[in-house]
């Protein structure tokens, strides 16, 4: 989706922007002057030590301003931290921001503030609690790791989802601080992954990816609920979860293939469609290999479908990654459309999306064929965009209908005639790739290319010839006429390197049809104007002469050479031509040319070395391959930075997706059964069919989420560390038996619908503060308005 700023810039006229910018420019001078005046550190310190909140705030604003500009502010540490206990929220916030940045450099002083922050964990305001846990985990002083861990423990069971989310993100920070806290942290993580609020779960997944990505045991019991929550999470949570589940699926859902007998006639439709990829050999019509998708994986695939309508392009690409790497190829069309539609976004997004499209199309071009017009290059496209677009066009080329083929070819031809040299080169190469990918079209592409040879543009000619050479070398037998046409182009071609390369080509195919070809004739014509050729071309002409002569010798020499035959040879035009060219070359200005002429002369003059000359001159050349420029990218995981950077780069932290696990090593699907029997039964029966939660269920769970760890909630207003007031159920949250009770109780509440919820709220009201209860009530009611997807 277009960003709001882009849309508003469309709506506003450009004049407003420039006017305001001009005003700002004139104003900026004033601001800087003012900054200079107020910049003295003593003044700032004085402000920070003031008793007036307003002055302190002003001082803090100055410090934050300097910090943001990159000026070192560590001198104010003591003065700033002094204010950490301020009751004013705004001051607190700014002090925290400062602490996050500078605590590392002054660990001892920072420790003084810990006590105050710890106290803030008990604040009535959820914002303050969340801020406290964030700043506590964020100040990188290793000594306090245990305090942080305790703080996280308390916040994990906080009644505010916002605080729990902050706690989830504090886990990786705590882990970095002190890796030995890992066992505690994973326990908290397990609790958070099972949270009822999708708000929290997203953050928990991020933490899981960061701290212990290989502890799959934590994910198993929550797999199904995670998949169900996917749709309701915020975009960033969706991204994290899709990343986690992609790897999870590879590791836990074995790729089971089942062979299915298909009646001969039936296979015609679907079998032929994917015949290249899946079916091999003659028995294709009888046996079709069908990938059996694990029902749990199917759940994920289905849950992803609505995400393809996300406004966040990263989510759409993540969905594409799921389909590319987890689903059978015939389901790719689901994501092809949404991916292509991202091309309407900003250029930066376009680039990333094109990289991903091309990497899919390298293997599966089919789903993109109907979007050919989306890949038309526009005049405003920068180089990295049109390169990818041309590649996409060539990849889908063999699979499209004639109409689209015409469109693509004329498009390529149009760009081949442009004035942007790079684009011309790339377009001609693209034509070549089109020709190679499908021999049926080769003739047409060749015609197109030959037309370019006569152009006056050197780049175009040179590039076309290279491509033509590749095409001819792949199938020399059928291209005798092409060589003749090329030789004819020598009359008009003017570019030196183009001429040289034509001459080389003619020489390369001088042996076709037992010498019954244009090579000798070409040589004769070229000999006329030998002196006016460029050195480059001259070298090739001499080489051509040598080749033609070598072929001639090979044809005539099987008989033992005698003195008489040599006399005859002198009369043959080819040998005459050869010696004429050598003579010309001998008196040329170029050393190189003279040397080469001498070499060819001596090597071909003695019959005994003819064989050697043949090896030297007429060795068969390997057929060059012109792979798609992005080939190799498809081995990377879709949507990764490593894929964009490509082969040249080595992106730190990139791990390829694991291979599918073998069926024998796959864990039992029963692991994924959620421990409580009552809910799981209901869930699976619903989950198999319904894509996500039904509308009512979503609303209900949203209503429940704010109060989900309600067992401890009445006390959460002012809990103490390790408070004995916490009921035992909270402590044993990870243990299935108690969790069962916990969930079962929740579930029954759900069934009783609003009545019981209100009751619960009443309970809450008794213990917690007025504000809190108001909040609860509002949640219960407003949640009814929540959308259900």
């Amino acid at each position, binding site marked *: 989706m277009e960003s709001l700023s882009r849309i508003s810039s469309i709506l506003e006229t450009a004049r407003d922007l420039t006017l305001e910018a001009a005003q700002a420019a004139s104003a900026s001078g004033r601001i800087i002057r003012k900054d200079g005046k107020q910049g003295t550190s003593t003044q700032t310190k004085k402000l920070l030590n003031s008793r007036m909140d307003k002055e302190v705030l002003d001082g803090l604003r100055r410090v934050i301003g300097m910090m943001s*500009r990159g000026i070192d502010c560590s001198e104010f540490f003591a003065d700033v931290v002094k204010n950490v206990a301020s009751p004013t929220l705004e001051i607190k916030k700014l002090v925290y921001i400062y602490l996050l940045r500078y605590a590392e450099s002054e660990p001892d002083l920072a420790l003084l503030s810990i006590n105050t922050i710890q106290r803030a964990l008990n604040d009535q305001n959820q914002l303050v609690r969340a801020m406290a846990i964030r700043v506590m985990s964020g100040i990188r002083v290793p000594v306090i790791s245990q305090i942080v861990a305790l703080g996280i423990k308390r916040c994990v069971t906080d009644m505010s989802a916002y605080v729990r989310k902050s706690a989830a*993100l504090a886990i990786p920070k705590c882990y970095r601080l002190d890796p030995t806290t890992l066992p505690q942290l994973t326990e908290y993580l397990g609790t958070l992954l099972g949270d009822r609020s999708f708000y929290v779960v997203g953050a928990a997944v991020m933490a899981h990816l960061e701290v212990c990505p290989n502890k799959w045991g934590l994910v198993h019991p929550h797999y199904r609920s995670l998949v169900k929550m996917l749709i309701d999470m915020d975009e960033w949570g969706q991204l994290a979860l899709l990343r986690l589940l992609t790897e999870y699926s590879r590791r836990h859902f074995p790729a089971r293939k089942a062979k299915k007998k298909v009646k001969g006639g039936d296979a015609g439709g679907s079998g032929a469609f994917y015949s290249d990829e899946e079916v091999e050999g003659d028995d294709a019509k009888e046996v079709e290999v069908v990938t059996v998708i694990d029902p749990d994986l199917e759940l994920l695939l289905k849950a992803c479908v609505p995400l393809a309508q996300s406004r966040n*392009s*990263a989510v759409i690409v993540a969905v594409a990654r799921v389909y590319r790497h987890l689903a059978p190829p015939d389901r790719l069309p689901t994501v092809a459309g949404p991916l292509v539609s991202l091309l*309407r976004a900003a250029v930066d997004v376009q680039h990333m999306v094109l990289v991903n499209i091309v990497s899919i199309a390298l293997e599966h071009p089919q789903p993109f064929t109907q979007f050919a017009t989306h890949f*038309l290059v526009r005049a405003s496209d920068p180089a990295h965009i049109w390169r990818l677009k041309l590649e996409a066009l060539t990849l889908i080329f063999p699979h499209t209908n004639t109409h689209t083929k015409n469109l693509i070819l*004329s498009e390529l031809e149009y760009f081949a005639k442009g004035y942007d040299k790079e684009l011309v080169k790339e377009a001609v190469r693209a034509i070549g790739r089109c020709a190679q990918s499908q021999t049926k079209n080769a003739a047409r592409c060749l015609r197109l290319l030959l037309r370019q040879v006569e152009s006056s543009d050197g780049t175009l000619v040179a590039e076309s010839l290279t491509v033509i050479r590749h095409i001819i070398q792949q199938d020399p037998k059928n291209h005798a006429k092409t060589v003749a046409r090329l030789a004819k182009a020598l009359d008009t071609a003017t570019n030196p390197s183009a001429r040289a390369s034509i001459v080389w080509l003619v020489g390369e195919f001088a042996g076709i049809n037992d010498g019954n070809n244009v090579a000798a004739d070409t040589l004769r014509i070229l000999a006329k104007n030998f002196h006016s050729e460029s050195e480059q071309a001259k070298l090739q002409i001499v080489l051509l002469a040598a080749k033609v002569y070598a072929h001639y010798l090979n044809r005539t020499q099987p008989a033992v050479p005698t003195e008489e035959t040599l006399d005859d040879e002198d009369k043959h035009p080819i040998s005459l031509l050869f010696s004429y060219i050598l003579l010309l070359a001998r008196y040329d200005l170029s050393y190189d040319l003279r040397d080469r002429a001498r070499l060819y002369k001596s090597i071909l003059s003695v019959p005994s070395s003819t064989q050697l000359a043949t090896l030297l001159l007429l060795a068969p050349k390997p057929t060059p391959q012109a792979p798609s420029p992005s080939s190799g990218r498809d081995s990377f995981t879709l949507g990764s930075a490593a894929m964009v950077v490509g082969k040249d780069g080595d992106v730190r932290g990139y791990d390829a997706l694991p291979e599918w696990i073998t069926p024998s090593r796959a864990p039992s699907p029963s692991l994924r059964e959620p421990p409580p029997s009552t809910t799981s039964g209901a869930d699976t029966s619903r989950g198999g069919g319904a894509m996500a939660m039904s509308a009512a269920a979503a609303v209900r769970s949203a209503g429940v989420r704010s109060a989900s760890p309600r067992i401890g909630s009445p006390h959460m207003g002012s809990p103490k560390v390790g408070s004995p007031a916490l009921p035992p159920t909270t402590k044993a949250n990870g243990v299935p038996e108690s969790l069962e009770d916990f969930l079962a109780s929740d579930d029954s509440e759900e069934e009783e619908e609003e009545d019981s919820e209100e009751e619960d709220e009443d309970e809450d009201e008794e213990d917690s503060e007025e*504000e809190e209860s108001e909040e609860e009530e509002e949640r219960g009611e407003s949640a009814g308005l929540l959308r259900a997807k």
Partner: protein
Amino acid sequence: MSAVEALYVFDSFPPATTPILQHEWRSRPATTAASLHSLYKAQPSPRSSLIYLPTTSPPTLLFNIIHNNLLFLSPTTSEIEPLLVLEFLHRVVDVLEDYLGSPLLGSKIEANYDIVAQLLNEMCDDGFPFTTEPNALRDVVLPPSLMGKLLGSVTGLPSTSIPSSFTPSPTQTLSTIPWRRSNVRHTNNELYVDLIELITATIAPSGRFLSARSNGTIAFNCKLSGVPDLLMTLQTPTSHKQKLGAPPTGGLGFPVFHPCVRLSRWREHPGELSFVPPDGKFVLASYEIDLLPSGNSKSAIQPQLPVSVELKTGIGSLSSEFEARVLISTAFLAPTINTLSANPFGSRSSRSPAFGGSSNNPAVEEVSITFPLPPAVKTLTSTRCSRGEFHHDGRKVTWKIPTTGAFSGTATFRTGVVVKSYGGDDSDEEEEEPVDNGEYQDVQTPKTTKANGGNDEEKARREKKAKRKMEMAMPRCALVAFSVKGWLASGVKVDNLKVVGGKGLGEGVKPYKGVKYLTKAGDIEVRC
């Protein structure tokens, strides 16, 4: 591992090497902002939005976007989904504009460092995107006070002093709806919808459309109290419904939605958008519509655009001129407008004059034609146009056609091209010459004279060469720009928009609703 590590903002006007804003979410990165900036500058323009810097230690992935005059750089040292970072950066820009006022300028950031720091701190925690919804942020971070905002927008001077009467905390409560802040109160309940379509088209020399698409966006400005529940019905012309290969989405191709939209409703009743809107400005949905009825049939009716261009190159005695004829016609817009101007909201008859665009006949505005020029062009001579003015700047010439009143008719633009000489006064340009250079001609001349002896043939050749040279100096396409208010190329329109539920909006309060339509030429390329 994968985290957004830092954000650096550079002002490119005036260009500076020190950032005007730096914010680090993780511990101090190894590569400084200044060196990242110089490495960024070292890349040839146009730059990719993801630059891989293998020379830094550790190797850095540098993400960058440019907004107005501001350059946003965000380095990452380990694998991360590129689009995650880019989307996040766009979100940061949106939020900053929301808080500091549009357009976002360096000076505004400088004047509100405290707010910006709070926002960035809240939007990303430890490198993970945290709260990015503008409404949710409003609950957490105080906006610059109303007074300061007013000052900022009137004089362009953002407030440099804090509001004297700032409240201790915005709200103790957080909204349960992630995208809508709690306790919304408005004295005037208003609802504005903007439907904006950008036309992207490529037109072949023959005049046939190779591709024509309309990319639509539905932008909202919602000022409703409480928690309203809205239902918007879109009407799409039926001709697009049976599009080949398109999913049945009621004519809108590949829509994407703001998270507030209930997707199940859309799935069951395509064209109906049911949602609880965020407060303030937001983008509700975007879609694309193929204006070519179907990819294959050549006989199909071609889409009509209000501005059409006919480009002729290589004309004149020396074939060194090109001419463009522009036809502006609003005639065919009229039928569409009749349905549009009918007030879709019968409740209110008096329309604000600001919405005049849809009540009058749509007029074509801001018409301009841009010709990208090849590097071989030295300058333009004897340029004339029947209307408007032109501006030649480097590698392109832009011709602006004023359309005061309801102008429709034709206008012509004609110019001669002077090709760069190869004498070598500007040698750096010479290597870029796509045309043959003089050196070659020296070789060619003796050859032809010797071979043919005749002068005529040589002359013909030279003429041909000159012609070719001219061909290489001709523009290959024209880019058309225009905007039409009150008309949508795709024919989509808002059929209905009503408050169907929710709470907080008093009984009998009828919010004022306004709809605007705007079509702009996003990228229309006429080839020749």
